[in-house]
């Protein structure tokens, strides 16, 4: 009886929270099916349904191409980040070396740096390399590590007990093999989280693509395309809403599948002890 009560309580709280979290998304969905005129009234329910708004989004902009550009940016940036940041985070969490705390402080400095400080000098660097107008100024730096990801990964790797690493080393593993064979499988939830954040950050990034590709519509991402629905006099809310929902679909799908990596953390917990 008691157990049933807890079950009901848990699910009612979860359902109430779901409603709260979903309301604005639902609101976007309803807006995406309205006429342009209705979006400027206070009525929430569409007077008439206009699913053709979604077709209009695709006909008004080369949205598929923008989706492709965005996927390339987000995918390559995430891959490059993992390649450079996982080893760095491992060295910061599990190896002892002089200057480790200094490097940690520098990484936090890097995160603290207001973007307005770095924008001009860094832009000048890429302009000298003739790479402005493309997305490469946003992808290539990821090969040199990403401060936020290193910090996040490091906080996760620290929680892995040292005994596992010592055991691997005693078995004759070098540091690279210890990282690949022992640390990576154990840190999967953390690595999945870091990869997802990087991917979603790039997917929704507006400031970066605006800075580097605004002049060159061939390399636009969907965030820039969303902004292009603004005409001189008003924003076309119904199209913005439709396009927003379209751009959310790939990330929702990705998230749903990436959850597996988190769930595997459960089985992992059993091994640990």
């Amino acid at each position, binding site marked *: 009886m008691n157990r049933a009560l807890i079950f009901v309580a848990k699910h009612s709280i979860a359902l109430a929270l779901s409603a709260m*979290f979903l309301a604005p998304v639902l609101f976007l969905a309803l807006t995406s099916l309205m006429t342009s005129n209705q979006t400027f009234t206070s009525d929430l329910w569409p007077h008439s349904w206009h699913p053709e708004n979604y077709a209009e989004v695709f006909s008004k902009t080369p949205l598929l191409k923008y989706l492709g550009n965005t996927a390339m940016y987000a995918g390559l940036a995430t891959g490059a980040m993992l390649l450079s940041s996982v080893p*760095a985070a491992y060295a910061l969490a599990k190896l002892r070396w002089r200057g480790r705390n200094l490097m940690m402080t520098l990484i936090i400095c890097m995160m603290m740096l207001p973007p307005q400080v770095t924008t001009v000098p860094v832009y000048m660097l890429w302009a000298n390399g003739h790479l402005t107008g493309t997305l490469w100024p946003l992808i290539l730096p990821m090969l040199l590590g990403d401060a936020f990801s290193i910090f996040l990964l490091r906080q996760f790797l620290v929680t892995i007990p040292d005994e596992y690493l010592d055991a691997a080393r005693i078995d004759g593993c*070098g540091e690279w093999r210890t990282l690949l064979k022992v640390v990576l499988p154990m840190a999967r939830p953390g690595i999945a989280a870091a990869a997802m954040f990087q991917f979603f950050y790039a997917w*929704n990034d*507006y400031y970066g693509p605006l800075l580097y590709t605004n002049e060159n519509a061939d390399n636009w991402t969907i*965030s820039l395309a969303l902004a292009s629905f603004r005409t001189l006099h008003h924003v076309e809310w119904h199209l913005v809403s439709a396009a927003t929902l379209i751009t959310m679909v790939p990330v929702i799908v990705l998230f749903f599948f990436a959850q597996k990596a*988190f769930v595997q953390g459960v089985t992992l*917990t059993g091994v640990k002890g």
Partner: protein
Amino acid sequence: MATVTLTEGRKTSALRRGARGSRRPRLVVLTFIGPALLGLIVFLGYPLVAAVYFSFTRFTLINPPEWVGLANWRYLFQDPLVGIAARNTLWLTAAMVPARIVGALLTAMLLNAMKRSRSAYRTLFYLPALAPPVTATIAFVLLLKPQTGPLDTMLRWLGIDGPRWFNDPAWAKPALVLLSLWAVGDLMIIFVAALLDVPVDLYEAASLDGANAWQKFRYVTLPTIRPVLVFATITGIIGCAQYFTQAAVAASVASNQVTGGGGVSGTFGYPQNSMLTYPMWLYTEGFRYNLFGYANVLALLLFAVSMSITVILIRRFKAFTRGES
């Protein structure tokens, strides 16, 4: 058997010593951190030096910088709005960081306590965090629209006369906190992953010792997830120190409904400077008034203050020395 243990023990200590001093492990460490180190030099060191230089110049981005000495730094004391902007940012940091951490931790614990349908709820809770910040803010402003908005309508059903949210200087910042709670999913995901790492048998041992739910949380859960809590606090402070997009969009959309005019930067701080954050003021000085030298003074100051707060936090919680094993 005893000899084997002995050699193994020696091997481990040699490895540890080696990691500190000898040549090969140092090279290993360098290959691990080399790229990141180079990244820090190019994307932290160089821009920082450039920013300090620009702060002593008159720099409009069009003409080359012209040396003006301490003029920009002196202007700081005459700037009428820098104090208001700084106070707003402090207010938002003090409210948002704890609210988001508590909100994320509670939802993550609820999720982990659910057996079936966990992944469906997880996706639902995470959904708002997937929306682009600009559109999320727009949707939220319309949701909180005074009188006609869905929330006010529902509050009226309950007989409550709702606040004017983004159109009231007293309620604008709390509304921004609500918005940040709505998108708490990103932090929640981190806590979900961290909670999965708490060893189950520690809970079992605590139960055997007769610990109640609160004691298990206090003495098992909290210490285990401490590195992640520190992470959430520090990144939360960073996020608040650079808080810009949501406040700018909220001001722009909310003011349009009332006054019917103004571009984004024309409405910065609406209503009555209550949503004017420090980075917004920095942006205005630099990219709108073209006072890039002075904007760099503001940026360096922001950097120095948020850095000091973080260093104090790290010292206080000994984040990088203890709690590592």
